[in-house]
């Protein structure tokens, strides 16, 4: 056996549980959810199985091998560009019939392959009885049953992978009906010698026939007028067979093959309506569904407030006592100041993470995994159309409530670049979990829950207004909605916990150290009176325009790293403890500052991902947009308080 690390790719239709299976094998690496298109870029992992290293790639879900959506193109470059050593085709067993269409297509590649029947538990609940041996015979490749959420079947899968790689068995493609197969053969014979063959001549010929109306087509054929003529003739002949476009005829061929296999290998007994299906009819109800949507979000914030706020007060107490103790004992010298800074940094982190961040992440994870996001998109589509976008953006905004960064990455699922840019420009205005935490902590804790809710509402109004302005600037009607609604699934607690842990780790690894370092730095700077310089520079903005104490200026520097740091630094800068804040600034000032920071420049990681995903121009527009809106809206808040 040679030393090269074999490459194994996981391919399947969106939502088939690929990423969950990948995580079960590779440890936690890929983000998963019950929403099509979560894996927009692929995840890599090196896995050791029985003393051998394998490189495993989790590709985004794709419905077919004809690229249409941006994330599907990733799949193609992978399997066409770098020939994988083995394909693991993951199938949602409960959607066996449709999933087999992709399987038939993959078999045409004639690469070594294993088929994984995932979600077997769900299929059984639906009354489906699948015969894996019959399926194996029909497809000519090994079929493994798994329940990825419980880690069932992963060992068998890796054993089979090992065996197939050792034996180098390649499958045979399945035959279309004779008349179509004859036309394909004709085209194979016409392929010029220099034609870029993918996988094998038959697969290449099928791609060429199907490439009709796709941009790839022109590129291929401009230099080959002779072949082009032949290809057009073959397409016409195939088209004439069924009185449909050639690509539809081929798709129908695969459909029939899949249907035939399905009928031979699967029996469906009549299934009872599960409790989830009953729940689904409520969720999707045009009126009750919207009501439920509102209720879910209101309930989510209420719960977090009811649980988080008292917990926060309780958690802050010892840190507060510690800080006061230090100051009392050591007075105002540098080590004492630094110690206080450290205590505030660590304590601030504890007070955010436990009461607010964790519950919010758990709830978001639950909504994601049960399959609520796509449903919210369906319910909200009409409203989004009034704002010039469509329902597919809704799940992205909801993801943005968790963290802006993955939400901006997931804008790849939007077909048009215009929709992508607008959505990506709007997402930084959605308060992410970290920001929500601070808003809830500060506003709800100090002013009361209604103020926090009002602030949230203001935030959403700003997003809506901005959206209608942006969609008027970039004029163009967005394409209609086509969105698969996956069946509701009971989420696996393990999966949600893993996801929460993953996000939490990110926070503890990156944000918390910055928070502590920032707190220390601020103590140091204020000891040297350096902060006065920064404050003096920012005074026209902070005091002049917004009417805030000029000592808050220095906190904005930290806002460039993460917005919420500005708010946490506020106590340090004003030299007060949590409970005493309102003795130094008034309500109007607090709200003005929170507003300003909330809309302030996108945090460093959001900015970086905007730059990477959509280019420098969009990132710069986003900065300008956020800064100007921050100034405008917070000034309006100040004005509103002055007037009423």
């Amino acid at each position, binding site marked *: 056996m040679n030393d090269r690390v074999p490459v194994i790719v996981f391919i399947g239709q969106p939502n088939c549980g690929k990423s969950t299976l990948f995580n079960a094998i590779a440890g936690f690496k890929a983000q998963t959810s019950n929403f099509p298109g979560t894996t927009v870029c692929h995840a890599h992992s090196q896995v050791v199985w029985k003393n051998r290293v394998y490189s495993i790639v989790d590709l985004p879900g794709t419905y077919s091998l004809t690229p249409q959506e941006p994330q599907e193109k990733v799949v193609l470059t992978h399997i066409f560009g770098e020939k994988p050593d083995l394909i693991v085709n993951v199938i949602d067993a409960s959607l066996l019939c449709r999933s087999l269409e992709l399987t038939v297509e993959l078999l045409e590649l004639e690469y070594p392959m294993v088929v994984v029947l995932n979600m077997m538990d769900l299929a059984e609940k639906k009354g489906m009885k699948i015969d894996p041996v019959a399926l194996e015979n029909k497809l000519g490749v090994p079929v493994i049953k798994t329940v990825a959420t419980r880690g069932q079947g992963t060992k068998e899968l890796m054993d089979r992978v090992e065996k197939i790689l050792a034996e180098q068995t390649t499958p045979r493609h399945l035959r279309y009906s004779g008349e179509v197969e004859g036309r394909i053969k004709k085209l194979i014979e016409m392929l010029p010698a220099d034609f870029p063959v993918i996988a094998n001549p038959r697969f290449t010929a099928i791609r060429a026939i199907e490439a009709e109306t796709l941009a790839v087509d022109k590129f291929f054929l401009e230099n080959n007028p002779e072949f082009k003529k032949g290809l057009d003739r073959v397409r016409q002949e195939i088209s004439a067979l069924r009185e449909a476009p050639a690509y539809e005829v081929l798709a129908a061929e695969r459909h029939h093959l899949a249907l035939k296999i399905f009928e031979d290998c699967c029996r469906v007994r009549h299934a009872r309506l599960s409790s989830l299906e009953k729940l689904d009819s409520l969720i999707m109800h045009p*009126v009750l569904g919207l009501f439920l949507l509102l209720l879910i979000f209101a309930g989510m914030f209420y719960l977090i407030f009811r649980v988080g706020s008292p917990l926060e007060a309780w958690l802050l107490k010892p840190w507060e006592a510690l800080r006061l103790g230090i100051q009392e004992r050591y007075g105002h010298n540098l080590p004492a100041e630094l110690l206080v800074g450290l205590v505030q940094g660590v304590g601030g982190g504890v007070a955010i993470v436990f009461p607010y961040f964790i519950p919010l992440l758990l709830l978001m994870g639950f909504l994601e995994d049960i399959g609520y996001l796509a449903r919210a998109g369906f319910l909200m*589509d009409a409203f989004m159309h009034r704002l010039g976008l469509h329902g597919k953006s809704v799940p992205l905004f909801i993801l943005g409530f968790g963290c802006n960064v993955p939400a901006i990455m997931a804008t790849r699922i939007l077909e048009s670049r215009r929709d992508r840019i607008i959505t990506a420009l709007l997402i930084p205005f959605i308060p992410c979990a970290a920001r929500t935490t601070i808003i809830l902590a500060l506003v709800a804790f100090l002013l009361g829950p209604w103020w926090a809710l009002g602030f949230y509402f203001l935030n959403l109004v700003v997003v809506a207004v901005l959206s209608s302005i942006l969609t008027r600037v970039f004029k163009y009607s967005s394409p209609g909605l086509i969105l698969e609604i996956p069946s509701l699934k009971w989420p696996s607690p393990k999966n949600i916990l893993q996801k929460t842990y993953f996000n939490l780790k990110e926070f503890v690894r990156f944000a918390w150290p910055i928070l502590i370092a920032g707190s220390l730095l601020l103590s140091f700077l204020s000891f040297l009176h350096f902060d006065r310089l920064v404050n003096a520079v920012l005074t026209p903005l902070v005091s002049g325009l917004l009417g805030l104490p000029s000592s808050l200026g220095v906190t904005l520097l930290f806002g460039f790293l993460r917005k919420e740091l500005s708010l946490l630094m506020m106590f340090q800068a004003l030299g007060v403890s949590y409970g005493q804040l309102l003795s130094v600034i008034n309500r109007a000032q607090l709200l003005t500052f929170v507003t300003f920071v909330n809309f302030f420049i996108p945090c460093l990681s959001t900015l970086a991902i905007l730059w990477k995903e959509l280019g420098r121009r969009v990132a710069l527009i986003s900065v300008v947009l956020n800064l100007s809106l921050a100034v405008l809206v917070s000034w309006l808040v100040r004005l509103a308080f002055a007037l009423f």
Partner: protein
Amino acid sequence: MFGHKKDRVESPPIVGGVCSLLEIPHGHKFRIAEINGGAGLHRRLLALGFHRGDLVALDGEALLGGPVLVKNLNSDTRIALGRSIARKILVEPADEHER
């Protein structure tokens, strides 16, 4: 607010039992007869497992001219389709016992 009514006027008249997805009652079996519109839409629907001849049923719709929910009875999948797209899909009534 007014988009809803306009949709009804624009949709093609019912000829020989063929009508668009927007005009059928909820929960009844229909067969996809024709998919109008460009190749892009056609391919997308094929990839999602919606073929000509498939049995479908309307499973719900959102408020205020929002999308309709279409269930494919053959593959047991559901997709949400915006009205502008649902209008392009023509269906004909199918026998309730057909499979």
